[in-house]
């Protein structure tokens, strides 16, 4: 392996890693605020990407407007997921399995709806800075990928601030750690859950509009994104925003090094095997038990 190839694969792994991290971030937000694994997270990103594509390419709106529409659509989807699926399931005392099956069903529904609307083709979408490229030690990286990394880090910082410093963020954590206690303090637990899913949806929509310029929009992309994002989130302790990004980057790097050393066809085999191994060996993530409690 030449030095340039190594740098190139590290850059690719870094970019993919931040994508997985962004998806994992949304999963971590939902888990932190509601103790529920949202298996739709990758498909929320798909919705964001599709809406951004429709707004900017089909309707000719300026790209930034399309991006905003995509992000908002993600947030709205998250909110609807809570109202239409999570709430009725909880009302009927559905088990953990039921909640997962319902969100999995939601994921399949989104993918099927996109198939119906868009067909089996994949759709390119322009990124920030178009197709401009930066040189790093003779290897190349798209300007858009740098923006993706910067925005991801900004979102993590914003979430940290939100949970630690704002009243709503604190109420949200209280509602998830001790729902009954929070209720006695006058916190509307149901509303907090809706807010959590809305927030997770916004992060998902953002992930979608940021990832679409790199991988093209395709109806099947959501499920793999969800699983890789889930692996990233577990590595980071399942409820920590920073941990999810860190886990995502680690996963992305391992995956892209595997691609150069083994074969690109087996990329998903590597990442799915890693996901299973992580769940078995490191269910508490890399940072120990503390992260899962949301503190």
């Amino acid at each position, binding site marked *: 392996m030449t030095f340039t190839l190594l740098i190139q694969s590290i850059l690719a792994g870094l970019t993919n890693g931040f994508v997985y991290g962004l998806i994992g971030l949304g999963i971590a937000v939902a888990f932190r605020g509601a103790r529920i694994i949202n298996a739709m997270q990758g498909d929320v990103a798909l919705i964001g990407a599709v809406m951004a594509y429709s707004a900017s390419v089909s309707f000719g709106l300026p790209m930034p407007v399309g991006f905003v529409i995509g992000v908002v659509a993600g947030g709205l989807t998250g909110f609807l997921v809570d109202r239409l699926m999570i709430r009725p399931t909880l009302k009927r005392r559905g088990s953990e399995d039921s909640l997962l099956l319902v969100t999995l069903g939601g994921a399949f529904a989104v993918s099927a709806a996109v198939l119906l609307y868009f067909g089996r083709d994949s759709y390119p979408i322009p990124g920030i800075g178009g197709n401009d490229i930066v040189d790093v030690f003779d290897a190349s990286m798209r300007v858009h990928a740098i923006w993706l990394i910067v925005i991801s880090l900004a979102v993590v910082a914003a979430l940290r601030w939100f949970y630690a410093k704002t009243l709503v963020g604190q109420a949200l954590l209280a509602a998830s750690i001790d729902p009954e206690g929070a209720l006695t303090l006058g916190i509307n637990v149901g509303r907090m859950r809706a807010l959590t899913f809305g927030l997770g949806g916004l992060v998902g929509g953002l992930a979608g509009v940021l990832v679409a310029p790199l991988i093209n929009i395709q109806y099947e992309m959501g499920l793999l994104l969800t699983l890789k994002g889930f692996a990233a989130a577990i590595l980071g302790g399942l409820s920590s925003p920073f941990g999810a990004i860190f886990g995502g980057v680690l996963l992305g790097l391992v995956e892209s090094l595997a691609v150069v050393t083994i074969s690109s066809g087996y990329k998903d085999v590597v990442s*799915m095997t890693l996901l299973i191994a992580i769940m078995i060996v490191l269910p508490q993530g890399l940072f120990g038990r503390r992260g899962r409690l949301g503190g």
Partner: protein
Amino acid sequence: MTALARSATAHLWTGMLMVAVLLVWVALPWFLSRSAIDILVFTGIYTIAGLGVSFLLGQCGIVSLAQSGFYGIGAYATAYGTTVLGLPIPVCIVLGMLVSAVIAAAVGVPVLRLSGHFLALATLALAIIAHVLFLELEWITGGTLGIGGIPRISLFGFTFATPFRFYYLVWPSAFALLLAYSLLLRSRTGIALRAMRDAPAAAAVAGIPIASLKVRIFVLSAAVGAFAGSLFAHYVSFISVDSFAIDRAIGFLLIAVLGGVRSIPGTIAGALFVTAAPNYLSRLGDIHPLLFALALIVAVIFLPGGFGGFMANLGAKLSSGGRRPSAPAGG
């Protein structure tokens, strides 16, 4: 009426119902079009594969999305064995079940230590791995080109070449497996499974080997899935990687959830829905994946017992004059 007489009458009615069902089953293909029989053949194949998923979910609390992988292993084993190696069909079918069982055991020992959403997502990851391998291991599977010319099954010089004939092969197999699973449910193992599902801690204290029992049921389900895959391969005589993608895994899970995971015969109803719906909706384009996904959501939220549970509840309600029935234990 004495209790004895009442139970004798009940048995008589059950017996007559069974005979009637049998007669309808035998006569059905004579009155149906070729395409309708084709749907019923697929219903039979999917019933077999769905049984494994349903039993895992209902009796062990294991959500398995990996069945499409085992189904594929069965299909590819029999296709490769008959067309490339030239082995006899029964040997290939058994080979597929064995390969599936060995892989399920090897994968099941680590993976079944997981529970809840971790386990469900792990099986989904397994289905994706299987699909990629079916695509990449071209020297066995033929990749996207697939394998053609898979021979028809024949027994004593009678070839099961048409949907009409295959109907009489697949359904006895499905009924035999339905019966076997029912017996398993009523056996000591079945009791142990229910104990494990409803009170794992107590079951462990009672000396039930939880980990190994889960693996054994998973292996059984994989072998049954492979059997269904083999039947599929011999029925359609051409297979490609498209038949073993994630949507197949969703279909099998939907069969279990719709049919009612605690109800073994309910599986047939689930399988009929999953086979017939796409066929009648095909003129509307690719609409059935959306319908399947929505059906999965609605069934999980509103019909946790599936068709089978719904019918059992209804029956119990009618016979007990509206008294609230106890949860159906199975069967």
